[in-house]
Structure formats: C-alpha cells, structure tokens
C-alpha cells in the first residue's frame, strides 16, 4: 500500500527563484534550502500537491473548486515569470490520480476530472526550489484559493482527508509526500499591496495566529477561525491557507515539526514528518 511519509508547506511567489539567485543568504533562500534538504532526506516516490491556480490553468469560463488531474504528465509554468521554469514536463501518476478521483466522487466530493493539464507557477516554483528530480511524479490537486467564493476551511480540510484515505488505500508501495503551496497573509496586485511592491502582507496578526495553531497542532481550531471573512481580510491570496488545511487533512492533524513564518512576504515554511495519521 502507499504511505504518506511527510507533509510540507512552502511559498510559491513567482519572484522567489530570482530573489534566491540574487541573494542566496536571504532568509527565504535559507528556509527553502532547509526544506530542500528535508525533501531530499524524505525521498518521496510521488508528490501529491495541493495547489492554487492563478487564473492560468483554469479561467472564469470553467473554474472548478477542486480539480484532479488524471494525466501521465503535465507542463508548466505557463504564466511567463522570469527565472520560473517555463517548459518543464512533469511526470504524473495516472493510476493514483484516477484512484484519488474515484475515491473523492464516492466520498461525495463533486470534483472536476481533468485529463489535460498545464500548471502555472504555483506548483512549478516549489518543484524548482526544492530541487525535485525531473523523473519525480507529481499529482497537482487544484484548490480554488483565489477566486471567491472559495471553499470553506472545513470543506478543504475534509477534501484533504479524503485524498489521504485514497492514497493509503492505493495498492502500490509508494512513498508519498503531501505538499501545500502558497502564502498566508498576502495581497497580490490589490489595493492593500505595500508601497513600491506588487504585493503586501496586510495582516501580520493572522500569520502569527496560524503559526501558533500549526505549531501546536490545533488544526480544528484553525479550521473554525479561518472563516471566508477572516481569510478575505488577510489578503486576496490568503485563501492559499486552504491548501495547508487540505494537506493536513491528508497527512493527519498534528503539530508541525517546524513552522517558520516570514512576515516580510506573509509566507511560511512548514514541515510535518514521520507517521501521523
């Protein structure tokens, strides 16, 4: 059977590859480096990534709340940021994708089925900065975290739990890492961006609260606090917390082994490892 060997939460800001290249001693470069070392030690066979989409893989003509790519491979990033890989072909795991999709539908999650997928920077930046090998298989589960109305925190967490069941019931001895990517206190291109920047971190108290909850393993409490209204006040990208809650649903609620917030960008690096359930 497949097993979930760890969980990670990392940022995917599209300027990070350039910033890390230009300033390898910066906090974010060191944190990403530490996560890349953990990633190498965990040595997963497959990543199941809970990822948002920035109106790139999907658009307003057809915008799923949750989507499951069932593909042999996908490409990205499609959204053309400097130093973000553009034509990377990422192998996926069709059979596991199909098993996740089937289990979700049977668990009353009416998810979208996707048999052709192109990713934006959201999943590609973490693969790039974690140093994921080109043959590592990735299933990018898309969570609508940016175009309100977003799914509730409770629903995202339950979605992740059902994904976790599907992984653990999959009849192949795979070591699976569950990954969440995004920011927590973050406004991108909106009115509350910081002067001289294209983004901002308008609600540092929220990032502190999320940090305290996740360090203590108080996931149920965080799910209750993360109302749509509360998330909206933490920025137009703060819904990306839903990917963390989904990832924890899959991994199993427990205290983070490490969870380090970065207030300048409203982001955090989180690691959960070992058998949780």
């Amino acid at each position, binding site marked *: 059977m497949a097993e979930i060997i760890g969980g990670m939460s990392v940022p995917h800001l599209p300027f990070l590859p350039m910033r890390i290249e230009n300033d390898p001693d910066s906090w974010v470069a060191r944190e990403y480096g530490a996560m890349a070392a953990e990633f190498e030690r965990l040595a997963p066979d497959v990543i199941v990534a809970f990822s948002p989409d920035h109106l790139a893989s999907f658009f307003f*003509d057809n915008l799923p709340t949750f989507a499951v790519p069932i593909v042999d491979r996908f490409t990205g990033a499609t959204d*053309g940021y400097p130093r973000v890989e553009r034509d990377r072909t990422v192998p996926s795991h069709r059979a596991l994708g199909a098993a996740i999709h089937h289990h979700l539908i049977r668990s009353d999650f009416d998810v979208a089925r996707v048999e052709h997928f192109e990713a934006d920077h959201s999943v590609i930046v973490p693969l790039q900065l974690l140093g994921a090998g080109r043959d590592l298989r990735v299933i990018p589960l898309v969570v609508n975290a*940016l175009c309100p109305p977003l799914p509730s925190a409770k629903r995202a967490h339950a979605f992740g739990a059902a994904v976790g069941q599907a992984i653990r019931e999959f009849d192949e001895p795979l070591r699976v890492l569950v990954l969440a990517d995004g920011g927590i206190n973050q406004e*991108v*291109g*909106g009115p509350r961006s910081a002067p001289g920047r294209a983004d901002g971190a308008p609600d540092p108290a929220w990032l502190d609260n999320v940090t305290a909850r996740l360090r203590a393993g108080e996931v149920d409490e965080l799910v209750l606090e993360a109302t749509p209204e509360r998330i*909206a*006040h933490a920025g137009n990208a703060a819904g990306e917390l839903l990917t963390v809650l989904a990832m924890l649903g899959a991994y199993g609620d427990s205290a983070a082994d490490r969870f380090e917030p970065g207030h300048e960008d409203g982001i955090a690096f989180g690691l959960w490892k070992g058998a949780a359930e």
Partner: protein
Amino acid sequence: MSLYEVHAICRTALKDEGFRDALNADPEATLDGFDLTPAEREALLTGDVAALYAQGAHEYALMWLGRAEVLGLTVPEYMKRITSAEPHYVY
C-alpha cells in the same frame, strides 16, 4: 455587467502579442469587438483599474494589463492606481 469580457481582455492582452499591439495602436476599435458596458469601456480606455476593481473585476486579471503594458499601464503604474482604490472584501 460584462465582467467576463473585461477579464477576457486582460488575459488576451497578456497572452496574445497581436492583440496587445492592436490595443496599443487603436484601443477604441479593438474594444469594439467586446460586449462591454459604457462604464467598463471608459475605464479600460483610460486604464482606470481602480474603477474596474470597484465594478467587480479581479485584481489578478487586472494586473495583467500592467504586465502587458497596454492602455497606458505598466506594473508600477497599475500598482499606483490600484492602491488608490478602496479595498473591498469578497467572500
């Protein structure tokens, strides 16, 4: 409201160089091809992203107008204008 058309213009400007050039060469005629309200059309022609935001357009799509450098916008100019808007909270 024809927000879908506004969003489609933003995306096409980012993705399609020919459309970008047309929008810069003759914005009036280029926008004739879209089903816009007078307020949306006026806001697009003047690069008034704060007005488009107030009408419900999504910031992620609007920012592409700055990245595409159309309708008098660049990313810094886009940021200057959007940060003059009154934030609203959508949920």
